[in-house]
């Protein structure tokens, strides 16, 4: 089932009289294709949970419409939308066993949809098998680990075979190892069931690793939609460039003169088709290559060995952050020339942005 958000806006009134209203989500336009896994990504307070709640029906948009397929569901309550939701804290009913928790949505069915006890038990067991908790059906949630509780919550959301599965920060309460495992699990379940799934996260690695598409939001405004690699390689503005990628992109104050990018006193890269102007130059950590006569020289601070590759930490006067982090292969030889290292830049790892609008400026071979 594809989901369409059509000019969806959510405005909260000010808490006290006279205080300004809060624009949580602003004119959100987006179509989520059928059967895909979508990551809603953004920093805290960017409106991603509000967006999820509006898809779910827990919150009504101030304006705009929400469609599931061809059905306008804007005015439907959550129970009539055919959605399953996994909450950040899982929201399992603590007094019910795992089986009762999973059966709860089925027991609420009324009229012609009403199921017999046996069918309900069968469906609950089927959902439990899907998330591999069929051995734990008679336990209470308090007797389960965080990861197991997470699976129960997913089983409960799936048991009614929803048209849309929504997950709110599904991995944030798990430890690092379990997080890795669970995100693969979510991907597996999504592929197995083919249910259109939207999940919210502030962790870009999480979103990029399992999503078919990611939706980057900031301050209630949609920034960019696309396949994870595409958004990473081709950010439309400085926010997206900074938000995606660990370690983060390095941002320099620079200027373009005669189609050359200058950082400090050095002309570092040819940028065809860009007129003379001041720019922000974002360079991915992997965009640096060690080269003895490279155009960019950085003051070396220290070298961090990470096994597979090596992090070179350095400083530069024009850099926006305190340090510049570049990643080079661990077998590369780092020439320390009086406390400086020299780098050449990979053109496709360098992104230019307007200094006022922060929008991307494309150059040379980079396609629009």
């Amino acid at each position, binding site marked *: 089932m594809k989901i369409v958000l059509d000019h969806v806006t959510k405005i909260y009134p000010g808490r006290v009289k006279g205080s300004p209203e809060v624009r949580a989500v602003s004119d959100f336009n987006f179509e989520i294709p059928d059967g895909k896994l979508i990551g809603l990504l953004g920093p805290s307070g960017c409106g991603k949970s509000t967006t999820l709640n509006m898809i779910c029906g827990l919150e009504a948009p101030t304006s705009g419409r929400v469609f599931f397929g061809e059905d306008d569901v804007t005015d439907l309550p959550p*129970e009539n939308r055919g959605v399953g939701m996994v909450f950040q804290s899982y*929201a399992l*009913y*603590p*007094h019910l066993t795992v089986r009762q928790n999973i059966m*709860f949505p089925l027991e*609420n069915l009324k009229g012609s949809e009403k199921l017999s006890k046996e069918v309900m038990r069968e469906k609950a067991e089927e959902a439990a098998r899907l998330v591999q908790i069929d051995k734990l059906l008679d336990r209470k949630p*308090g007797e389960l680990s965080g990861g197991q509780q997470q699976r129960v919550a997913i089983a*409960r959301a799936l048991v009614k075979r929803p048209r849309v599965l929504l997950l709110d920060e599904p991995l944030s309460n798990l430890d690092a190892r379990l997080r890795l495992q669970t995100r693969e699990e979510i991907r597996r379940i999504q592929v197995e069931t083919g249910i259109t799934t939207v999940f919210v996260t502030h962790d870009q690695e999480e979103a990029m690793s399992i999503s078919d598409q990611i939706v980057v939001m900031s301050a209630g405004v949609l920034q960019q939609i696309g396949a994870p690699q595409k958004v990473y390689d081709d950010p439309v503005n400085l926010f997206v460039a900074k938000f995606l990628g660990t370690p983060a992109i390095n941002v320099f104050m620079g200027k373009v003169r005669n189609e050359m990018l200058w950082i400090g006193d050095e002309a570092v890269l040819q940028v065809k088709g860009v007129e003379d102007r001041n720019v922000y130059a974002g360079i991915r950590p992997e965009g640096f290559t060690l080269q003895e006569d490279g155009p960019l020289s950085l003051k070396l601070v220290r070298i961090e060995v990470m096994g597979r590759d090596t992090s070179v930490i350095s400083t530069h006067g024009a850099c926006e952050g305190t340090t510049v982090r570049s990643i080079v292969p661990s077998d590369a030889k780092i020439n320390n020339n009086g406390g400086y290292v020299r780098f050449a830049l990979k053109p496709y790892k360098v992104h230019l942005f307007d200094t006022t609008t922060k929008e991307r400026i494309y150059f040379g071979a980079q396609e629009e």
Partner: protein
Amino acid sequence: MDKENPKAWLYLLPALIFLGIFMVYPLFDVLVYSVEEGYNSASQTFFGVGMYNYAYVLRDPYFLQALKNTFILVIITVPLSTGLALLISLGLNSITKLKEFFQTVFFLPYVTNTLAVGLVFMILFKKTPYSDGFINLLISFFGGSTVDFIEGPYWAKMFVMCFYTVWVVLPFKILILTSALASVDPVLYKAAKVDGASRMRIFTKITLPMISPMIFYLIITGFIGAFKAYSDEVAIFGTNLNAAGMNTIVGFVYDMLYGDSGGFPSYASAAALILFVIVLTITVINLLVSGKNSRYS
């Protein structure tokens, strides 16, 4: 930590001394009094040891009346007050406007003096040569015949008694239940909504089980409190409760000790121990039932 550490006993000593003198010794003493037949408090003598005091108390019509009154009071007021408190708390929990105002109103009886409230009830219910009382005025306004609630028929007096008790115990229960309701994680309600539960099912399947430990707590303390009723009766019907036919078990104990027919500590002790056994039995039953229904981690 070493369980036999003598220091631990030293730290416990103050509490042990106080509990020993003011709790354990009197309890033991009551037991002794209750089996001493014909005990005379002036000469400190008695004829013998046996169960006569219990037999006497259980045959005393005043005691049987007090027992009956107490049981009626308990059976009517505990479920009624708990149910009402739940309804009012649910109401308070679902409004936002004037919430504080209503909370204050419902909490007022808790901070009001029992005797002052008793006086108000007298004015509301009592028939005097000058006035029929406010409630009777209402009754006659709607065409009913007036009733003397304070000195009239038994059911009328029992009605006032129950009404008063419910009114007095309500605030505490509302206080406990509103905080219990507020402590239910709101995300559970959201989840239930997404799961398609009706309002009724959300209440019976989620709200009630989540606050059930508090409800059981209120029922247990409510039973104990109602079994110990005495001062409220005095506030409404005066000190001669036997004449009014509205005595309670605690009232009977008091009368046996200090009342006009008093001076019988052995009978009082026997009655007190009977009350103790009743309360203990009911509490154990309550705990067994609640243990089965509200255990979750």
